[in-house]
């Protein structure tokens, strides 16, 4: 119950922000009867109504994982964000090996196997992308080449 109520409120707030954003769209010299704002505002309004329905008539709440599992998911998000930032400056091989090993550890914690999986994945994918598909991936950080 609580989950749907909270989510319904979040949806209403987001929808209102969206409508406000849509209302600020600049109109131009030659506009049709509908214009740039109408459809987004329509969509935002329907979303807000949906949020209200969720708030007023919530379903049974889902089974949320225990805090530890949730923390583990949050850690995976963090790893991915770091990977996204690291891919360009650090080249392909090292960030990929590290990120893959961590994700692998989160699924089946066997450190030696995970490290090996990360390294192997990184190398194998590099070969496939670089030589199989011809993508111009940089293997290592710029300074090292």
């Amino acid at each position: 119950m609580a989950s749907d109520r909270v989510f319904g409120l979040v949806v209403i707030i987001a929808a209102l922000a969206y409508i406000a954003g849509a209302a600020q769209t600049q109109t131009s010299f030659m506009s049709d009867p509908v214009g740039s704002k109408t459809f987004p505002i329509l969509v935002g309004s329907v979303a807000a109504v949906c949020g209200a329905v969720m708030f007023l008539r919530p379903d049974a709440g889902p089974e949320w994982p225990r805090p530890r599992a949730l923390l583990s998911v949050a850690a995976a998000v963090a790893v991915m964000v770091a990977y996204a930032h690291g891919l360009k400056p650090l080249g392909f091989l090292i960030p990929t090996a590290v990120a893959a090993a961590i994700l692998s550890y989160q699924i089946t914690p066997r450190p030696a196997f995970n490290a090996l999986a990360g390294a192997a994945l990184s190398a194998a994918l590099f070969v496939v992308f670089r030589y199989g598909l011809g993508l111009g991936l940089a293997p290592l950080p710029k300074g090292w080449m």
Partner: protein
Amino acid sequence: MDLLSNLALGFSIALSPTTLMLAVAGCFLGTVIGSLPGLGPSNGVAILIPLTFSLGLDATSALVLMTAVYYGAMYGGRISSILLNIPGDEPALMTTLDGYPMAKRGRAGDALVISGVASFVGAFLATIGLMLLAPVLARVAYLFGPAEYFALYLLAFSTLGGLASNNQAKAALASCIGLGIAMVGIDNATGMPRLTFGNLHLVDGVDFLVAIVGLFAVAEVFFFIESHGRNSSIGVKLEKVTVPVRDILASGWTMLRSSLVGFAAGVLPGAGASLGSFLAYMSEKSIAGEKSGFGTGAPKGVAAPEAGNNAAAGGALVPMLTLGVPGSGTTAVLLALLMTLNITPGPTLFADRPEVVWGLIASLLIANFVLLAMNVPMVRVFVRVLSVPPAVLLPGVTMVSFVGIYSLSGSYFDLLLMVGFGALGYVLRKLDVPTVPIILGILLGTHMENALRRAMVLSDGDPTYLFSSPIAAGLWIFAVAGFVAPMFLRRALRKPRAADA
């Protein structure tokens, strides 16, 4: 009749060793591309178009190769849908709904065979349909003006809502999220940026590939991590592949009906294969009724979308060849190929360039048999890629997703967006908010808005124009009924149960 002589001409071209070889190579490449999560038919065809130039192929050969890849990718898309719960491409989305539950119950092989046969039936019938009906069916496009398109898109959302969730509000919300995302970026009609909230990265909008990979691949990784590999997708193993004759025979009518529905959806410009598979699944679900187990691993639930999307792929060739109006993203890329080869698609193509059209049709017929052989007896070849331990496969899926998205845009912002969609997908699925309508919304959003705007220009802003034609009115009625009916059905079904308790 000259259909036979045309076909004879076609086969005389298609059965030449080079053409045959190209068709086989195209089928193989297409299936591999289709089965890789995130890579779909339009990427596949786009990747290979430059190849046809370096190979120095003539018009017919190039077209044969590319359409074989196209058909192959439509077949291949189901493999990771069934085994990983990640659609190999966007039209294979619906196949996850029953294919994956089937695979979880140890019937992965059966699901692959049934879907392979269904793909064959869909694609085969669509090719026949293309051959017989192309000149006639092309006229359907003339019946669809802005008001009709608007109603059609509405129908797609409302029926999807009835299908995808137990709560209409949540399904409608998902559609709105998708439509809302589609609005972000420059408004083509005025050239003004909308809803970018000052973020320059959003000026060109959100790519639906980023959303798909995030909502499906990345969210799946999160689910997997949450459960530490217990009771999640990749535990699915492909034991032995036998042919479940009974299921296939039982799904016979499903496949035929779905092919018809899918083909019709494909013929409509802009609708494409996703709508085909979706409508096919929907109508079969309603025919089979609530007790049929749709959504929990019903063989018919695998057969319907696969027959539907493969038939739609064939159907989409009809408006492309006869009107020069592509019916889908992939056919838009194929259209580019035709233009390059100095073939002008249009109403006279069938008369002016019979060797191209009939060579293509004959090749498609042959390619279908090749694909059936590859995708049923030899399906293990394509599955092997996916049968590795989860602790390797999941990080692998993540990295492929990252590199795939990164190689398309070279933008770390897209990668962050993808992770964001992953987290969103995780939360939404927890809350029973379906994610499929989000994708449909992103795909159809601008089309739907444009249809509305054009309708209002033509009618001087009179809203009644939206349902003034019989076709539009009919579509509206179905749309409203499709959205409202499940609510009452559920209530009717819930009451007796409540009385029991």
